[in-house]
């Protein structure tokens, strides 16, 4: 579906409409277009191109991104703020099961570097071509493949065991004696 077709459903008006029009047919569905807020779904094949277009706009910056565990995969929401118009445009891209992978925009937008690492740690979204996909939030001892912000993660049942105690032996002995 192109922007022209969706226009009958959600009219692209005002400044947010201008922003979404500029993205052209990379926008596959406009969910909402209000004075200061825009919500749209974009083509997963073209995330990097869209990110470059957004960053090139005057006053636009990547505020942050949110990952959501949904039925068909993980929804990645890139929140772009544009000043001084005070607009927040959220561009959604679905990372479908089973790969849960989308193209990383961190190469084009440095601000996406940390937040993509965070989404990878906590929800297991994969970002193809991320320059530095080390852990950011989770401890190095946290097991692979356990994602605490997934809906099926239970804080009691699924909590991994604590890592081995790394206190030097003499410190432990002193504490035990005091006790």
């Amino acid at each position, binding site marked *: 579906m192109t922007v022209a077709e969706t226009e009958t459903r959600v009219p692209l008006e005002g400044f947010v409409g201008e922003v979404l029009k500029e993205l052209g047919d990379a926008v596959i569905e406009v969910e909402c277009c209000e004075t200061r807020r825009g919500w749209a779904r974009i083509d997963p094949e073209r995330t990097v191109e869209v990110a470059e277009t957004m*960053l090139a706009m005057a006053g636009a910056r990547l*505020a*942050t991104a949110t990952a*959501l565990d949904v039925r068909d995969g993980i929804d990645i929401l890139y*929140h772009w*703020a544009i000043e*001084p118009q005070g607009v927040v445009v959220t561009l959604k891209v679905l990372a479908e099961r089973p790969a849960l992978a989308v193209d990383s925009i961190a190469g084009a937008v440095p*601000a996406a570097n940390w*937040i993509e690492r965070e989404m990878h740690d906590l929800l297991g979204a994969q970002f193809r071509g991320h320059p530095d996909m080390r852990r950011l939030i989770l*401890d190095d001892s946290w097991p692979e493949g356990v994602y605490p912000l997934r809906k099926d993660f239970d804080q009691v049942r699924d909590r991994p065991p604590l890592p081995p105690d790394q206190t030097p032996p003499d410190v432990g002995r002193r504490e035990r004696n005091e006790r």
Partner: protein
Amino acid sequence: MSRRTVVNIGPFHPLQEEAEFFQLYVDGETVVDVDVRISFNHRGIEKLDESKTFDQVPFVVERVCGICSASHPLAYIQAVEEIAHVEVPERALYLRTIVNELERIHSHLLWVGLAGHFLGYNTVFMWVWKYREPVMDILEIATGSRVNYANCKVGGVRRDMTREQLDRIAQVSDELLGPLDMLTRAVLDDPILHARLKKVGVLTPQAAKAYGATGPTARGSGVPIDVRRDDPYAAYDRLAWEVITAPDGDVFSKTVVRLRECFEAVRIIKQCVRDIPGGAIDAHVAAIPPGEGVGHVEAPRGETFHYVRSDGSNRPVRHKVRAPSFNNIPTFKASCIGQQIPDVAITLASVDPCYSCTERMCRVVDAETARPRYTWSDLVRLSQQKTAELRKKW
């Protein structure tokens, strides 16, 4: 080839009480790269919020940070109010503004004090914290607590303020102007501070945009962004005030922005106390419909951004919290490189990094042996030594 050394700072920080780990890659005295490790204290607040009702979440998110404990709940509440299309009573908007500006003053003063300490101006540290204390007192008078004000709720505020309380707030804010003026002149006139802070840790406007820097970190680079003006919330669009910027992007500019913002905050508070209308303070929201919303607030350190999704039940399905430091700390990649080691302490401090928000660390390690070389206290000592040497010359 010259030898590259890694300098470790952290993860435990004797000045700021939380864990963060910086690794500076240095060539001689010059920093050539920096790596930051965070999240030594991740508390899983986003996961916790999914098990709380919409009314309980503000009490959780104000504990994200003890300093931004008015901004985080307000950003969350605005996201929820966006979902439910709530019309907040006028008086509540003014009350929200007052608490948020008091928070800005005490946070900026706290930073000026710490910056003074990093540079070896411990008198500044003691004085500023003395002047900050009355602000904490009036926050306690007005909200019942020095931190974690529990002031906002979805649809309004939880507590009204009496005329006596409002007048007291105006009076204390007014009394701050003298000390603020003295402090600002002390900073602007001190030749040693000029030598220590100017052209140090420069963040260009282009880098500020690329890294998504917010708040005084961006405004100190001449980027005039401020959520209070651009996407007005609370009562900011009804008041006369200015967005403070400084052009140079160095630590000096960020200091000037923070100090001048305190004056603007006093101006805003006095207008609020003068203009506040009477009436209800709560819109009594009954239920939150399905939907999603974003809320952002200009916290003292920059924009705090919250995303909330509701499925029509009484709990959020997803609540995303992004604190300003999460975007500001990566700017070290742009501002620290090329610096001398003694200047790094103040450059790292210049974004006013909030560990509980971003919650994460830096160290200077030897690149060949990977052994730690400097601790944070070593860096503060080096920084203070450099000031002392400058003092002798002047």
